[in-house]
């Protein structure tokens, strides 16, 4: 959406500004004059202010694609540098690669490198810009979210207490509620976080201080947590109190806020450690609560907080820690997290939730299964007990039937019934059965008579039967039959006064039902047991229920045997605990005390009627009762698997984040390095540019197609073309070249073409045509531009040699003239004295002849000196040329020796010559060869005393000679040696003898004339011909000069 369109209507102004939302678009095109650049800067500032005034963050998109390098004038650069410093949030510059260096330079120079990026691609630039904006929003959203959650948790807690809504104060009903004072602290904490985000230092510190005070008060034995909802909190029990762990964490968080402001290293470290403690403690508590894993929070009872509180504190600790880290590093530490990283984090949270719900499910299912199994077992036990009791009751009631069916039951019948039912055998726990007759005082004699006469078992009857311990009461209860023991001495004992008995008999009689005695100690077995007293009626029809009671059947039970029998079928397996108490006493009458697998138990109390009492049966089993081992481990397995997976994910997240962070840091480092290198490159380039343009010689760089890519200013001044005219054109299209004769040189023969084609340095002298059509002589050197081993172009350096040529010409003209002018008078003297000496003009007297001869010889030396000077001069101006032709060294030697013959003879020098007649001719300039031989021979003769020896040897050189002379041995050479027995050269001066105008000390003292130029010329000439010269010499022994000359020299 185009909000503002600026400058577009003005055709002279090419820069455009407009806004799309918060994005300011700037398009720069064409040459940026001072006026244009300044106006653009003003516009830019105005746009930025507009966006800022609207309360938005200005983003800038600068389009430089319409800009060429040369458009970026000094004014433009200054304006851009200023523009980069403006208070925008992010600026994306989009332009061609060519502008990159300039742009980066300006960005770096303005110090805006963090906010500015250079793009070659517009879409990438837009993406980057928008990413910058959203990241700020995300950051803000993050802190607001944290503060909001913490505040809401606090508010929810308070609301929960106020309205008795346990969901709000507990989150999970089974868990403890948040303390109201802690909820208030959370609201203060929320306030502190927001204050800190807005960098309100005072407010943050005050809030933090309040948190610390609350924490300390909570730790003191004050009832701070009762202040708000005192009675309610008291009623809710100990779990609702302000946890001391929470109090400590609030104090730590308060300190965290204070530490937030310091950037000292110790403060940062302390902050990090404390934040980790807060998060760790809160998380530990949370997990302990959620998974009911007491070991987690039973490390310290002080650790237990409510779930909402620990959730809020964990969040707060994490937020404070991360915020501090972010502020310190000046970047969001999650800024390194990739999309994959966030996905892993999300999966981590999902896994946590899934683990918790999976764990819950498994726990519930296990509990249900276990409880069902437990119920089943209880039913089994109950059934068994009741069935057996019924069986016992039935068996005992049989006695009632026995008495109901006959008028008198004698001892035999009683014993027979007892034996028939096999009570003690079939009904374990029954110790003894007896019949107690109820006898009125007046009937006692009849009772005694009857039973004394009872011979049903004992043949003599019981003649001695008496009433023992006879009671004074009207009614007597007398032990009559003792089953299984017909002659027991207990027979006839009056039990009326035995403690507890009378009440039991009376109760049994009045209720017509059995009565239990409750627990008694059985003396006979020294164990606990009880009696059951069954009222027995006399003979009566079945319908007559209220027939008079004639006695009681008393059965003695022993608990151990009884219960062992009762539970014989029901499995008192070792996974339950059981204890039975008689209702009359809490003392257990029977117990099975197996050790259970866990501390967590499920228990059930049941009551079973036992005669007129009840038995309280308490059954306990482990919480995993009836569940096989594997199934019982399921919840923990899920928990640990889930947490292990989470840890794995966390590790992956951290590793991935770390790797990414390292990669990004590395990338940053590399970018910084590259930037530095680029800056250095720019600096170098600038230096190079200065050097490039400072070179007085023309410098043309072409690519491999011969297209001119760069020229320096010297080219412009030498050729008259502008840079723009030259760059980008093919060299032969604009730069015409001619040879010395004025013939145009074809492109294929041009040095640039040859260099590109061969990759070699090509030097050539030719004539270049200027833009105005004039020609000038140029000396060219073309070097290949080699990149990566391949010829990518050519570098031509050329200079105008017109002046040089003029200078050379003048110099050689001077030499010619000087030699001519000097030699003319010398020639006259020479020839006239020669005439005189030859005697053509008549014979002179000896004295005159000698004098003329002095003139002649002096003149000869003068000529020699002039020749030498001319030669030196030629050597120095490079005019000495090798006009090679086949030359016979033998002939040369002949001629020289002939010339020197006079001197040799005069000095009586013994000259030996070894120059074989089959010597090959040397292809070299005879004049140069002559100079060599002439100088060496004349020196040898000159510097050898009279009658000395001079040996001249010329021969073909051997391979060894070439090796010795360090010359390439694949070429044929001639070897020349001139050996004398002369004065020699002092050792200390041997290194200087090839120098110009140098003469050794020892010969200077002698009266030997010399110029000091000879050996210099010889050395230069030998070098020029591609040969070598060296020597051996010892003072007063002689000198040996050796020369190697190629048989075929290179003409020049």
């Amino acid at each position: 959406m185009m909000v503002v369109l600026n400058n577009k209507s003005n055709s002279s102004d090419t820069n455009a500004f407009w806004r799309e939302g918060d994005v300011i678009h700037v398009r720069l095109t064409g040459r940026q004059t001072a006026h244009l650049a300044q106006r653009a800067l003003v516009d830019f500032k105005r746009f930025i202010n507009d966006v800022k005034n609207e309360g938005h963050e200005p983003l800038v998109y600068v389009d430089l694609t319409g800009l060429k390098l040369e458009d970026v004038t000094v004014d433009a650069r200054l304006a851009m540098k200023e523009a980069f410093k403006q208070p925008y949030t992010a600026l994306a510059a989009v332009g061609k690669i060519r502008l990159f260096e300039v742009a980066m330079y300006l960005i770096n120079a303005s110090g805006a490198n963090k906010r500015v990026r250079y793009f070659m691609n517009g879409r990438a630039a837009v993406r980057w810009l928008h990413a910058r904006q959203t990241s700020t929003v995300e950051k803000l959203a993050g802190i607001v979210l944290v503060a909001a959650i913490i505040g809401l948790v606090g508010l929810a807690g308070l609301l929960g207490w106020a309205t008795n809504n346990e969901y709000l104060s507990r989150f999970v009903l089974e868990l403890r509620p948040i303390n109201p004072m802690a909820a208030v602290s959370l609201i203060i904490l929320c306030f502190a976080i927001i204050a800190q985000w807005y960098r309100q230092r005072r407010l943050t510190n005050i809030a933090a201080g309040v948190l610390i005070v609350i924490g300390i008060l909570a730790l003191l034995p004050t009832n701070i947590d009762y202040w708000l909802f005192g009675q309610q909190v008291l009623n809710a029990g100990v779990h609702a109190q302000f946890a001391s762990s929470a109090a400590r964490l609030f104090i730590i968080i308060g300190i965290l806020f204070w530490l937030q402001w310091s950037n000292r290293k110790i403060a940062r470290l302390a902050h990090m450690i404390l934040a980790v403690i807060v998060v760790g403690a809160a998380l530990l508590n949370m997990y302990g609560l959620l998974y009911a894993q007491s070991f987690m929070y039973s490390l310290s009872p002080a650790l237990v907080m409510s779930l909402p509180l620990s959730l809020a504190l964990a969040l707060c600790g994490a937020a404070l820690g991360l915020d501090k880290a972010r502020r310190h590093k000046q970047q969001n530490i999650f800024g390194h997290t990739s999309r994959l990283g966030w996905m892993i984090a999300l999966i981590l949270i999902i896994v946590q939730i899934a683990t918790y719900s999976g764990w819950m499910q498994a726990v519930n299912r296990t509990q249900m299964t276990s409880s069902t199994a437990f119920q089943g077992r209880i039913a089994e036990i109950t059934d068994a007990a009741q069935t057996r009791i019924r069986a016992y009751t039935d068996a005992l009631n049989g006695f009632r039937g026995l008495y109901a069916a006959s008028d008198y039951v004698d001892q035999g019948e009683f014993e027979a019934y007892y034996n028939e039912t096999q009570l003690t055998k079939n009904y374990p726990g029954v110790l003894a059965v007896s019949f107690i007759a109820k006898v009125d005082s007046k009937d006692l004699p009849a009772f005694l008579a009857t039973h004394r006469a009872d011979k049903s078992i004992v043949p003599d009857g019981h003649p001695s039967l008496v009433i023992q311990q006879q009671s004074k009461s009207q009614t007597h209860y007398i032990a009559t039959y003792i089953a299984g023991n017909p002659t027991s001495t207990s027979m006839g004992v009056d039990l009326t006064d035995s403690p507890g008995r009378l009440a039991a008999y009376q109760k049994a009689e009045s209720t017509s039902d059995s009565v239990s005695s409750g627990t008694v100690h059985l003396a006979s077995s020294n164990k606990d047991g009880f009696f059951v007293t069954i009222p027995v009626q006399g003979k009566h029809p079945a319908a007559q229920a209220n027939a008079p009671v004639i006695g009681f059947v008393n059965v003695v039970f022993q608990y151990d045997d009884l219960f062992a029998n009762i539970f014989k079928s029901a499995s008192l397996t070792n996974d339950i605990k059981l204890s039975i108490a008689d209702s009359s006493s809490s003392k257990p009458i029977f117990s099975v005390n197996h050790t259970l697998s866990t501390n967590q138990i499920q228990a059930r109390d049941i009551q079973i009627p036992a005669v007129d009492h009840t038995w309280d049966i308490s059954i306990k089993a482990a919480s995993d009762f009836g569940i096989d081992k594997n199934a019982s481990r399921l919840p923990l397995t899920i928990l640990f698997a889930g947490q292990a997976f989470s840890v794995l994910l966390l590790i992956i997240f951290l590793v991935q984040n770390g790797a990414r962070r390292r990669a990004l840091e590395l990338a940053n480092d590399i970018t910084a390095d590259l930037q530095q290198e680029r800056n250095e490159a720019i600096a170098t380039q600038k230096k190079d540019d200065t050097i490039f343009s400072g070179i007085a010689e023309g410098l043309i760089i072409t690519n491999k197609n011969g297209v001119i890519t760069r020229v320096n200013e010297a080219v412009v001044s030498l050729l008259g073309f502008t840079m723009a005219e030259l760059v980008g054109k093919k060299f032969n299209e604009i730069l015409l070249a001619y040879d010395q004769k004025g013939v145009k040189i074809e492109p294929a023969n041009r040095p640039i073409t040859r260099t590109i084609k061969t990759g070699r340095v090509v030097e050539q002298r030719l004539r270049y045509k200027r833009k105005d059509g004039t020609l000038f002589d140029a000396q060219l050197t073309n070097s290949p531009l080699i990149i990566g081993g391949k010829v990518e172009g050519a570098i031509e350096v050329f200079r105008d040699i017109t002046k040089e040529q003029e200078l050379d010409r003048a110099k050689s003209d001077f030499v010619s003239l000087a030699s001519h002018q000097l030699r003319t008078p010398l020639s006259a003297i020479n020839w006239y004295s020669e005439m005189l000496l030859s005697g053509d003009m008549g014979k002179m007297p000896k004295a005159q002849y000698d004098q003329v001869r002095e003139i002649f010889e002096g003149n000869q030396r003068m000529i020699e000196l002039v020749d030498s000077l001319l030669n030196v001069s030629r050597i120095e101006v490079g005019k000495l040329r090798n006009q090679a032709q086949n030359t016979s060294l033998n002939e040369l030697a002949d001629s020289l020796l002939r010339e020197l013959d006079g001197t040799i003879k005069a000095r009586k020098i013994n000259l030996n010559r070894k120059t074989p007649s089959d010597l090959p001719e040397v292809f070299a300039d005879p004049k140069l060869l002559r100079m060599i031989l002439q100088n060496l021979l004349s020196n040898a003769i000159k510097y050898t005393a009279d009658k000395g020896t001079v040996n001249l040897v010329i021969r073909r050189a051997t391979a060894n000679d070439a090796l010795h002379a360090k010359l390439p041995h694949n070429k044929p050479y001639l070897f020349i040696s001139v050996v004398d027995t002369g004065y020699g050269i002092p050792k200390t001066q041997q290194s200087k003898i090839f120098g110009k105008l140098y003469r050794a000390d020892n010969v200077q003292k002698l009266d030997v004339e010399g110029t000091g130029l000879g050996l210099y010329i010889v050395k230069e000439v030998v070098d020029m011909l591609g040969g070598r010269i060296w020597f051996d010499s010892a003072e007063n022994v002689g000198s040996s000069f050796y020369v190697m000359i190629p048989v075929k020299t290179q003409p020049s």
Partner: protein
Amino acid sequence: MAKQKRVLVVEDERPLANVLKLKLEHDGIETVIAQNGKQCMDALASGHFDVILLDMLMPVMNGFQVLDEISKMADKPVVFALSNLSVTDDQSKVLAMGAKKYFIKSDTPLAVILDEIKNA
């Protein structure tokens, strides 16, 4: 006895021309002096010469021009170039233009010149 040779000495330096004439005539060689190229050409037009000793640097008409003219003649005399210019370029140029030899005056004894004339 061989036929006497006629020599034309073309030399602007009078002392040098004189000494050459003295030497040659002492050996019985008829010698005529021309002081420049113009006179040389005039002399050649007026009579036959066997040998010309030709100086290269002369006023009016220099040795090169003379050589050029001589090269067009049917009956070419033997030319010895005599010069004090020892520039090698000149030497080869002179020889190329038809001179038989090139002598540097100061380096060449009269005896050598005489021998060369006799052998020409």
